[in-house]
């Protein structure tokens, strides 16, 4: 059964179309991440699901119930905001119980739920403090707790970790994942951070300009991006894109624009459908799938490059280089010595590449 179903959802702010005919269904207990650059409509979509924005058209179902006209509190959702949005004049306990008091729950029940939630989130010792006396991580825990006490089916997260520093962000990310494993309720998580998306999600919906570009598992999105935008957005460092032409010579071969002595053989690549000769394409290849040195010589595609810039990142070193005037990045082991001007042989297997049409940027 689907926990959330969105049917033909549209939202306009005056003339501006933010969401257009959007369909989405989320399974019970699923962790869905809405991923996209700022302004792509992901937070707007979340606000629509929460009932904080009136939709222009379309329907929203939660647990099989049409909640399109429901107030946020009636929808069976809990929400966590980027700025925590804790009530500053109330204690932590007051913050946690505010929603329950509004719902008119008996005192004992409120006590029990607050106790239970604070145990799960380890904020029992903070219950009598005001939000101003909490650190960022503690505040965000309380904000999660406020959603938790509501005992709801669906959790909505609006970039909950963006205000935290990098270390805390990683810690809380794991905590959110643990929480999901424990509670097993549906979670929708909005972020622009593709690492958060990859690590947390059961499925990711990559959004752009109010449209869902790809809706799939993190693995599928990473390995088989449907278009150049998704391919470039997911993965860090981002994918290399080489411009060129596909030629048919009994087998498909790639002719790089700007020249390469040999034209690589693409027989290993699984095209969606048979491809016409002389098609202009982007060949996308992730830096982390590129191998160097002796290993590279055994690859179906290999060539040698000159190191222009290198960025040591600890475990790996990212090397920036050029091929035929086009930028090309690859990783080498962090312990190997790299110098500017070195020539390195690199290679990859076209089976790991992604090829996109140059006009519509769709995967071929």
């Amino acid at each position, binding site marked *: 059964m689907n926990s959330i179903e969105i049917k033909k959802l549209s939202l306009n702010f005056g003339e501006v179309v933010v969401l257009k005919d959007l369909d989405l269904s989320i399974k019970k207990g699923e962790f869905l991440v809405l991923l996209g650059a700022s302004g792509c409509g992901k937070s707007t979509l979340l*606000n629509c699901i*929460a*009932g*904080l924005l009136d939709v222009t058209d379309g329907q929203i179902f939660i647990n099989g119930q049409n909640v399109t006209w429901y*107030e*946020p*509190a009636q929808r069976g*959702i*809990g*929400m966590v*905001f*980027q*700025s925590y*949005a*804790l*009530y*500053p*004049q109330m204690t932590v306990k007051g913050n946690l119980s*505010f*929603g329950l008091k*509004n*719902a008119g729950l008996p005192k004992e029940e409120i006590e029990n739920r607050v106790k239970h939630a604070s145990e799960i989130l380890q904020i029992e010792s903070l219950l009598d403090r005001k939000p101003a006396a909490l650190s960022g991580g503690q505040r965000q825990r309380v904000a999660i707790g*406020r959603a938790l006490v*509501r005992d709801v089916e669906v959790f909505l997260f*609006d970039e909950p970790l963006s205000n935290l520093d990098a270390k805390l962000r990683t810690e809380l990310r794991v905590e959110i994942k643990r929480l999901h494993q424990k509670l097993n309720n549906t979670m929708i998580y909005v972020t622009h951070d593709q690492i958060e998306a990859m690590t947390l999600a059961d499925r990711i919906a990559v959004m752009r300009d109010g449209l869902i570009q790809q809706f799939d598992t993190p693995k599928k999105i990473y390995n088989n991006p449907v278009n150049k935008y998704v391919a470039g957005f997911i993965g860090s460092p981002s994918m290399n894109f080489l411009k060129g032409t596909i030629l048919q010579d009994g087998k498909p071969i790639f002719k790089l624009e700007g020249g390469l002595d040999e034209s690589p053989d693409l027989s290993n690549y699984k095209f969606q459908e048979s491809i016409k000769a002389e098609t202009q394409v982007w060949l996308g290849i992730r830096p982390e799938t590129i191998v160097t040195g002796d290993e590279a010589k055994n690859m179906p595609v290999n060539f040698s490059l000159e190191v222009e810039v290198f960025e040591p990142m600890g475990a790996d070193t990212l090397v920036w280089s050029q091929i035929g005037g086009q930028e090309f990045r690859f990783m080498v082991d962090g312990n190997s010595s790299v110098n500017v001007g070195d020539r390195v042989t690199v290679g990859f297997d076209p089976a790991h590449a992604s090829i996109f049409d140059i006009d519509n940027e769709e995967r071929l």
Partner: protein
Amino acid sequence: MANSTVVHSIDGPRGPKPRKMLSRRNIILYGTLLVVAVYYLIPLYVMLVTSVKGMPEIRLGNIFSPPVEVTFEPWVKAWAQACTGLNCDGLSRGFWNSVKITIPSVFVSIAIASINGYALANWRFKGANLFFTILIFGAFIPYQIMIYPLVILLRDLGLYTKLPGLILIHTIFGMPILTLLFRNYFTTIPEELFKAARVDGARFWGIYFRVMMPMSLPIFAVAIVLQVTGIWNDFLFGVIYTKPDTYPMTVQLNNIVNSVQGVKEYNVNMAATLLTGLVPLAIYFISGKLFVRGIAAGAVKG
């Protein structure tokens, strides 16, 4: 060379830079401040000393000289015996009238304006912008244009020359500026807080009383100061929309000071003026700090 720099770093300047108290800069700065302060305080000083002098002493004409014989007679007279027209019960009647006008006017105008501001800032109802524009436009129309129509309106309502009528007038005229003040303050409160309260099931009034109001004490203090001083010091509306029985303190003060019959009792006039000014002064001293904080907070975002 290397050696000498090391020695310098030990012997050289260290810690806070010493400053001379009697530097030229300080003398000019404090001198100017002193002159300005004296300039503003001298009239107050003259009023104070005159109000505790007897009439014979005042007739000598030395307005700056301290009182030889301190007497509180003028204060008592101003409060309880000074005559305006046929009434000779002093300013006390006007004082209580002013209290009866100010307290409800302040309360009602702030209650309505804060709810207006909250609705305009957070609920963005249809026509909110138009409503707001009209309200702000109202702030720029000169009072004089509205005086006569309001007389007719109050007469038709049966409130002309009655205290509730004047309270209504003060509430109406306080509305534009107060609504603007509250709206601007509420827009500085993060929208996510409002959203969180909605998810928590609070409605219009719940959010107002339980979330917004407790966060807005500084701006309420500002509004109270503005309204109390404004309404207490008002003369124009007080003289137009009331009658001698219901005159506020300012109107009565004017009648005492400007009476043309008999001897000019300067000491009584001074005492009466000081008495009238005491309330706004007290309000300012009590809430001065909050006032400044609230003005600054409201001004961050427009």
